[in-house]
């Protein structure tokens, strides 16, 4: 078995990801697992800090631009700090109003997509992993083949289909095609297959139905991996561009990334305003990440490694 599966089935909170102290104990040099003296540690720290600064610089630059008066944004040579800090750009962007509506649209579509993906995928994965109806292997193989077909490739026929279903410019039009997530089914199939069968078998002997076993035993055991699937479905749906871009034409139904690209709410010189709306667009998930950092990082471990 791969090392990843041990992580995947390890109870919440006990993964080595979170026990920095263990590293300390085991290698014994205090701060780095690479060994080496304090000099190596210091060097690594400097390198990492430099890279981290480089990595956040674009975001800092966006924030700094957004709080400048418009006239200072294009100064040559470039000025890093505004001579006078102003939230003017934010006032203008929020007054235009659309950005909050797009956030709401993103929230609604991403939430519904996530709920449906988790529900449909876990049901299907359980069916594939734990039951033996005829044709199971064929259907599983077809589902897995779906992993290779990028949904982006289907935008043209999908749009025609949405026209026929009269779903252009509706939330369902945005949601439904995104609900099909064969990769998530695959991840969950692998996870369910690795669960010990004993508990379920005991329940079967007690006369519990499959549904009851699924709801009361399997799902609670799978909470971490389901959370991972949910988190990543949510992030990718929230940020998905191409499909919502194709299927929405009315700004009233556009999601945040689409509205930001397609609609222009202000005119003239507007670099500060563009950066202000960019910062506003980046904020929701950044806040979510800062708050749920541990769960999200662990989520990656689950989706990624249990797929090994």
């Amino acid at each position, binding site marked *: 078995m791969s090392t990843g599966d041990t992580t995947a089935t390890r109870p919440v909170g006990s993964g080595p990801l979170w026990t920095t102290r263990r590293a300390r104990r085991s290698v014994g040099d205090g701060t780095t697992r690479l060994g080496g003296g304090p000099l190596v540690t210091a060097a690594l720290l400097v390198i990492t800090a430099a890279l981290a600064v480089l990595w956040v610089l674009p975001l800092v630059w966006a924030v700094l631009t957004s709080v400048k008066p418009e*006239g200072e*944004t*294009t*100064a*040559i040579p470039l000025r890093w700090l505004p001579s006078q800090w102003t939230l003017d750009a934010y006032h203008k962007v929020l007054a235009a109003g659309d950005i909050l509506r797009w956030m709401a649209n993103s929230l*609604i579509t991403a*939430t*519904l997509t996530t*709920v449906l993906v988790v529900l449909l995928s876990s049901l299907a994965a359980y069916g594939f992993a734990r039951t033996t109806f005829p044709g199971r292997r064929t259907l599983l193989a077809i589902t897995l083949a779906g992993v290779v077909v990028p949904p982006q490739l289907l935008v043209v026929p999908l*749009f025609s289909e*949405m*026209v026929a279903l*009269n779903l*252009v*410019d*509706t*939330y*369902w039009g945005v949601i439904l095609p995104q609900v099909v997530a064969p990769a998530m089914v695959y991840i969950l199939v692998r996870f369910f297959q690795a669960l010990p069968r004993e508990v379920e078998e005991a329940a079967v002997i007690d006369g519990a139905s499959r549904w*009851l076993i699924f*709801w*009361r035993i399997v799902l*609670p055991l799978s909470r971490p991996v389901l959370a991972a699937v949910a988190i990543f479905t949510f992030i990718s749906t929230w940020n998905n561009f191409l499909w919502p871009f*194709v299927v929405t*034409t*009315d*700004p*009233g*139904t556009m999601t945040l990334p689409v509205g930001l*690209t*397609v*609609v*222009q*709410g202000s*005119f*003239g*010189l507007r*670099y500060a305003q563009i950066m202000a709306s960019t910062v506003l667009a980046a904020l929701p998930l950044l806040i979510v990440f800062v708050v749920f950092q541990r769960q999200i990082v662990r989520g990656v471990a689950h989706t990624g490694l249990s797929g090994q």
Partner: protein
Amino acid sequence: MSPISRRAVLGGALAVGAASALAGCSAGAGLADDGRSLRYWDLFTGGDGATMRAMLDAFRAEHPEIDLEAVTLQWGPTYYTKLAMAGAGGRAPDVAVLHLARLPGYAPAGLLDPFDPDLLAEFDLTEENFPAAVWQRAQYNGQVYAIPLDTHPYVMYYNVDVCREAGLLDADDQLIPLRGPDAVLAAFTAAKQVTGAYGLVTETYGTDGVNPWRMWWTLYRQLGGELLTPDGRDLAIDDAKALRALTFMQQLTSSGAAIREADGSGSIALFSSGQAGFMWQGDWEVTTLLASGVPFSMTRFPAVFDNASAQADGHSLVLPHRRTRSPAQARATYQLIAFLLRHSVTWAEGGHVPAYQPVARSAEYRALRPQSLYASVVEELALDPPVWFAGSASTLWLEMGAALSPVLTGRATPAEGLAAAKAAVRRLLATPNPVQ
């Protein structure tokens, strides 16, 4: 109790929440058809967008009974693609702005509905109120498909302070007309010495960058060149004339008289912060520049070659195809269009030359400075050939912009640029016409 019922409650709550959210959405998804609410789309992302907002607000004030929803989509292929897709998806707005030269690509495809002559007459939107050449372009198959709002030529903006210091102004503080390539280059170079940064700024590359096409088409038409044969089926580029225009374009940037690399908003930012003496751009940046406080004026594009033609297109208002349109809805729609035309002197403040003649002839318009200073260009317009792939932000423009931009940025010779341009046009001519 048991976890199941807790989950059931939670799931139920979620379902109710979702259902109500979606119900709210589907209520908005039905198209209004009672004449009490209108959806309007435009692509005015330049300074003219603010002007249009003001006009729409005026309409709202005059017609409180109509709920007007106005949207500005990103200029260019994004807008035109969305407009067509909305039509195909049955979700088109009631009124939309369309460049007149795009009509041959939209009307034959069934993406637009024709105007009703009776209603047009009732609102005074008739032939005699428009310039003949423009009105003729608004027809397809003997029916009116577009109501022209304006003509917007390619013009020259200049910084009054910079040009005065460079000795380029006359006693009335007007730019002394520049004639011939040498005079133009000399003026830009003189301005560059004053600013210490740039002489001419203009878009030389960029996302959906079409300015190289505008510049070339202007210069090439000043030499009398044609793009296509009169039937629109074959390439008719005159190599010698095309190369003369391209060579001049390269000279502008290679001599340092013009900026070598700038995208659209970058060039506007440089001009409005006083770092350039001149800017070549469409006429729609007046509002932006007025707001920036830069001392500027505008004039016709200089006669670099034989005549003073300038590339131009025009905005018009069209009725995107709808499966149904009630008489009440139609009336409200025509009301909005007529309002915008009658008040197009406000529109002209944003830089465009009004198409509606009662406005164009008015003293009020003629008094506008600098907006009426270049109005005479309407007699020498370099319009697109009337084919499905032409018009503002069309595939033709994008392909030509891409082919000619490297001549300005110095990455291709004029001959290479011309070869790329011809290849692009040939490809378009060979493409099966999708709108027939």
